[in-house]
């Protein structure tokens, strides 16, 4: 399998071509710096993304609180994680960094609050 990956580490946006099979990389070219090479390798083998959304909250001025995955989660788990976040029914107060869902969908990553809601 051959894949063109646009590096998003810096604004240069180098197009890095990775070739390989089943998570094994045979060749990688087009990167300008080691950070880009590292990014493209990870992106080829197991792409991850930070997930952000909102969760329902009562007892606050606003009906929603912004939430995020503390660290990136596997890209193919984004929609599963969204379904879990949608089930949340929180009550104020919530503090920035509070863990709202521990180990979401078995990813080992916590969903935490992005904001302080009093």
């Amino acid at each position, binding site marked *: 399998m051959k894949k063109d990956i*646009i590096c998003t580490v810096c604004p240069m946006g180098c197009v890095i071509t990775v070739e390989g099979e089943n998570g094994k990389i045979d060749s990688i070219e087009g990167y300008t710096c080691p950070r880009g090479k590292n990014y493209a390798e990870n992106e080829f083998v197991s792409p991850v993304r930070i*997930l952000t959304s909102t969760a329902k909250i009562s007892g606050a001025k606003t009906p929603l609180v912004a939430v995020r995955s503390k660290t990136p989660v596997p890209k193919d788990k984004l*929609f599963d994680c969204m379904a879990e976040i949608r089930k949340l029914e929180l009550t104020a107060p919530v503090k920035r960094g509070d863990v709202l869902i521990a180990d979401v969908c078995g990813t080992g990553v916590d969903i935490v609050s*992005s*904001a302080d809601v009093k």
Partner: protein
Amino acid sequence: MYEIKCNVCVVGGGPAGLAAAVAAKKEGAEKVLIVERDESLGGILQQCIHPGFGLKLFNEELTGPEYFGRFIDEAEKAGVETLLGSMVLEVSENLVTCINSEYGVCEISADAVVLAMGCRERTRANIVIPGTRPAGVYTAGTAQRLMNRQNEMVGKKVVILGSGDIGMIMARRLTLEGAKVEAVVEIMDFLAGLTRNRVQCLDDFGIPLLLSHTVVDIKGNDRVEGVVIAEVDEKKKPIESTKKFIECDTLLLSVGLIPENELTNNAGIKISPVTKGPEVNQFMQTSIPSVFACGNVVHVNDLVDNVSAESATAGKNAALFAAGKLEKKDAIKVEAGENVRYVCPQNVVPCDGKVDLYFRVMKPNKNVKITVCDGENVLFSRKAIKVNPGEMEKATVAVDGISALTVAVKEV
């Protein structure tokens, strides 16, 4: 009438106002007051729940609320005072007039004023799309506010006009919430926003990006039923034979931002015809010496990190001015040379130290040399593999003893 006295009065409590207020306090201004029309601080970042803030400043990928949350903590610690739910109606040299439901009209006298009102979005009226006037046409920022602060879903099948960052970010947000984004349509032949947003918001979800295309018609009576798109030629004229109908119930417009400058205009402050914001010098001082400005009210920034840096400069110098420590000196005008749309600050006072010049190119280019010259004398030179109007560039130059400044981006 309710009267307040302060050393530095900051208009607007978004990231720009917060950073300016903290910096003014740190520089020794005794009473620093932020006047904000919203019931809470944070400005537009309150609805920007996505990550991508603070990479430069904190070397971390923060969400909007996390980013301004840190500044609110700092402002509280520094002893910055706030007047929320207060709409500023008028600004002059040393007076800020606002209205607030508790006190009515308030007059705030200040030794220095910092303008940090941010920007607002261009709307359908600004770009003129023909067709009916059904419900379901939103600016991307309005949709963002509805979804992220008010818990209202805007639509199920969506077309987005404009490839600005807010539009792309909303494409991902809508998709994650179960909507189908049919296409992002961009009239230019290049992306308006950041490449990383194209990758993570469009490519990740297989959302088509149609460059050199535009929306030529909106169909539907009560609610949007679809839009007609077409490819455009070099003169941006739609090509008749390429017209295509896309069924959708919602059209989002992500067609750019304009600085919010009614107050600035009415104060008689000189406005740049290019940025539509006040002209400033490297101290972020406007044409009225006691009035400073920073953030999106000056020029539309793509990275809030730059806003915070520039705003700290404004706050610091406002405090110095309030204390009578910012000398008045003549400035020279910074010229935008080849392929440069504008440079901010527009004016530079020759003095010790270095100045950060922020600028945008007119059109995308590859393998270029960025130079800053004083006549024949090259003060700064850097090669860049790629430049893009969507990404602001920076050049730092020493300005002692200079007599002219021109920024240019030339092919090599």
